[in-house]
C-alpha cells in the first residue's frame, strides 16, 4: 500500500470517546468508547432500547451528544452539522422524498449544493447504476417495491461520496428472501467502495454475516466488541452468550459457563456407567434440515439446546421424554464474567 493511502486510511478512523446520550433523566447511551478503523464493516448489535440507534444518530449528527466526543480522522466532529461530517445516513424507513423521482431523490444532495440540473442528473444516474436501479430512474418511491426503495435510498446516501455510511436497520423492512440477497449486496458494495459502514441491527445472524467488527450493546453500554468469530466463540458475558444465540449458559462447578449448542453431547441414559455431570429429559426434537435441534430440560430446571448434524443425530435418535446425560468436552466450555 502506498504511504499516502495508508495515511488516508488512518485519517479516516472513527472514534467515540465516552460518548453519552441522555434524554431528560434517562441515560440512553452510557459513556461508550469505540474505535472503528477505516474500511471496516461495523455492526452495532443489540435488543431494542439498547442505545444502538442513538449511537448511530450521534455519529450522524442527528442527535446532540450529551457528553463525550465523536472524533473522525483526528478531528472532533461532535457539533458539526450532518452534511459536514463526511457521513451519510440511510434511514430505517428509507425516508425517500415521495414527491420526487428516484433520480431526483438521488440527486437531492447535489441540488442542495447548487450543482446544475444536467450535471447532477448525470452523476445521479451513475450512482443509480451502481445499485442496478437505472431502469427505475423516473419512478416515484410509491411506485417502487421495498427492495427497490432501499436501493434508491442507498444511492442517495452514496452520492455525496461519504467516508462513512450509516445504516439504521436497513434490512428490517424486507422479507426474509430479499434480506439475504440485499445483505450480500451491502457487503459487496462496502468491499468495492472501501468505505466504513456502520450498520445497526438487532439480528445476530445479520451481524455475523456482514461484520468485520461486531459491537454488542445492552442498556446503553458495550458488552463486547470483536470479530464475529471472537464474539461467537468467546462470549464475554451471559447477556452476549444468550443474545448471540447458539449457546447454553450453565452452572458448572460453581461458575457460569457458556457452551455452544453444537458442542453439547447427548447420551441416552441406560442405567450403567459412571454418573454423568448433568442429567435431563428431552422435551422437543426439531428437524431443521442440515441439523437437528434437541431441547432438554435439565434436572435443575435449566433449559438446554443441542444441535447435531442429521447423521450424528440418526446414530442415536432421541424422542421427547427420553432421559439423557448431557456432556461436553472440557475445551468447549468457557467461563463468563458476572
Amino acid at each position, binding site marked *: 500500500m502506498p504511504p499516502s493511502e495508508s495515511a488516508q486510511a488512518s485519517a479516516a478512523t472513527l472514534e467515540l470517546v465516552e460518548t453519552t446520550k441522555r434524554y431528560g433523566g434517562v441515560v440512553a447511551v452510557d459513556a461508550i468508547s469505540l474505535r472503528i478503523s477505516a474500511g471496516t464493516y461495523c455492526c452495532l448489535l443489540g435488543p431494542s432500547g439498547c442505545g444502538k440507534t442513538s449511537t448511530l444518530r450521534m455519529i*450522524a449528527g*442527528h442527535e446532540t451528544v450529551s457528553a463525550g466526543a465523536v472524533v473522525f480522522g483526528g478531528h472532533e466532529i461532535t457539533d458539526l*452539522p*450532518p*452534511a*459536514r461530517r463526511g457521513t*451519510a*445516513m440511510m*434511514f*430505517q*424507513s428509507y*425516508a*425517500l*422524498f*415521495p*414527491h420526487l423521482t428516484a433520480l431526483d431523490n438521488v440527486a*437531492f*444532495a447535489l*441540488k*442542495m*449544493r447548487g450543482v446544475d440540473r444536467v450535471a447532477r442528473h448525470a452523476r445521479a444516474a451513475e450512482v443509480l447504476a451502481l445499485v442496478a436501479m437505472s431502469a427505475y430512474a423516473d419512478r416515484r418511491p410509491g411506485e417502487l417495491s421495498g427492495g427497490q426503495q432501499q436501493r434508491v435510498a442507498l444511492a*442517495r*446516501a452514496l452520492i*455525496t461520496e461519504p467516508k462513512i455510511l450509516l445504516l439504521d436497520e436497513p434490512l428490517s423492512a424486507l422479507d426474509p428472501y430479499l434480506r439475504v440477497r440485499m445483505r450480500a449486496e451491502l457487503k459487496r458494495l462496502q468491499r468495492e467502495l472501501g468505505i466504513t459502514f456502520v450498520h445497526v441491527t438487532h439480528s445476530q445472524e445479520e451481524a455475523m454475516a456482514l461484520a468485520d467488527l461486531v459491537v454488542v450493546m445492552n442498556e446503553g453500554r458495550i458488552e463486547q466488541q470483536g470479530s464475529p468469530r471472537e464474539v461467537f466463540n468467546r462470549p464475554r458475558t451471559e447477556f452476549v452468550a444468550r443474545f448471540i444465540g447458539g449457546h447454553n449458559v450453565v452452572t458448572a462447578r460453581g461458575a457460569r459457563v457458556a457452551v455452544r449448542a453444537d458442542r453439547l453431547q447427548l447420551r441416552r441414559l441406560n442405567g450403567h456407567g459412571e454418573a454423568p455431570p448433568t442429567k435431563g429429559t428431552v422435551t422437543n426434537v426439531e428437524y431443521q434440515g442440515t441439523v437437528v435441534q434437541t431441547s432438554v430440560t435439565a434436572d435443575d430446571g435449566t433449559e438446554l439446546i443441542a444441535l447435531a448434524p442429521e447423521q450424528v443425530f440418526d446414530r442415536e435418535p432421541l424422542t421427547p421424554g427420553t432421559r439423557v446425560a448431557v456432556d461436553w468436552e472440557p475445551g468447549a466450555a468457557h467461563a463468563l464474567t458476572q
Partner: protein
Amino acid sequence: MSDGGAGGTALLRPSAVPATTGVGVWLRRLASRAAAPYWQAAPLALVFAFFFVLPLVVTVVVSLWRYNEYSITPALVGDNYASVFSGCLAELPSLCLTFKTYLSTLKFCVLAWALTLLLGFTVAYFLTFHVRSLTGQMTLFLVCTIPFWTSNVIRMISWVPLLGRNGLVNSFLVSAGLTREPLTWLLFSDFSVALAFVHLYTMFMIVPIFNSMSRIDRALLEAARDAGASGWQALWNVVVPLSKPGIVIGSIFVVTMVMGDYVTIGVMGGQQIASVGKVIQVQLSYLQFPLAAANAVVLLAVVLMVIAAMTRLVDVRKEL
C-alpha cells in the same frame, strides 16, 4: 332518504321478489349486487340534487328569462347577459362597470389569498413542526377557533371601535405623537377590507395545510438535513411541495368565499367599495331576479375557472 336505504336492503333478498312479472324482473335488477353501490350513494346524491343541483339549474334557467319593472316572464333570451356586459366591448380600452367591479373583487381576492396563505402556512408550520406534543397542538388549534364562537358580522363590526377616526389605534397614535392627524385609511378602506378577510379566513387556510403537513414524515426533514439542505432549502424543497394539496384546498376555500362576498366588503368598506356580490344583492333587492341570476352565473363561471387553474397545479383527489 332513509326509506330509500331501508328499501334497498329489503330488495337485496332476491327470494322476496317474484320473478315472473315484468315488475318482478325490474325489481330483481334493482336488487342485484351491481346496484347496491348506487343504493348506498343515493341518500347523499338526493340531498345534493335537491339542495345544490336544483337551485343551480333554477338560477341558470331564470337568468334566461325576461323581466321588466312589474313582471318576470319565462323565456329563452340572452338579454340579461347582454346587459351585464353592456358597453364593455365598446368602451375598451377603458373598463366598463362590470369589468371594474370584477377587477376590484379580484384584487381583494388576490390580496386575501396571498396574506392568508402566508399566515396560514406559517401557523400550520409552527403547529406541525415546533409544537411537539399532541395536546399542545390540540390546545393551540382550539385557540385558533375561538373567533368562530361569534358571528361573522360581530367579528367585523368589532374592528370599528378599534380602527375608526376616534378609535383605539388612532387615539394611541395621536397621543404617542406618531401622527398629528388621525389616520383615515384605517377604516372603510381597502386596508380594512383586506384586514377583515384575513381575520375571517386564515383559519380556512390553516386547517388543510396543517392536515397535509402533519402527514410529512419527520425522517424526510432529517434526510434533507443529512443531504446538506439548509432550513430554507428543506422548507422549499420538501415541506412546500408536500403541503401543496393543503395549500390548493385552502386556496379554493378562500378564493371562493372572497369572490362571493358582499357583507365584508360592504361593512368594512363603508358601503363605498363595489363588489360582484354587492351588485347581485342590489339587483335582488330591486326584484331584478333574471339580471341577478345572469350575474351569478357569470360569477360562478369566473370562480370555476380560477379553481380549475389552481387544481391543475396539484391532484386534489390524492388528498381525499
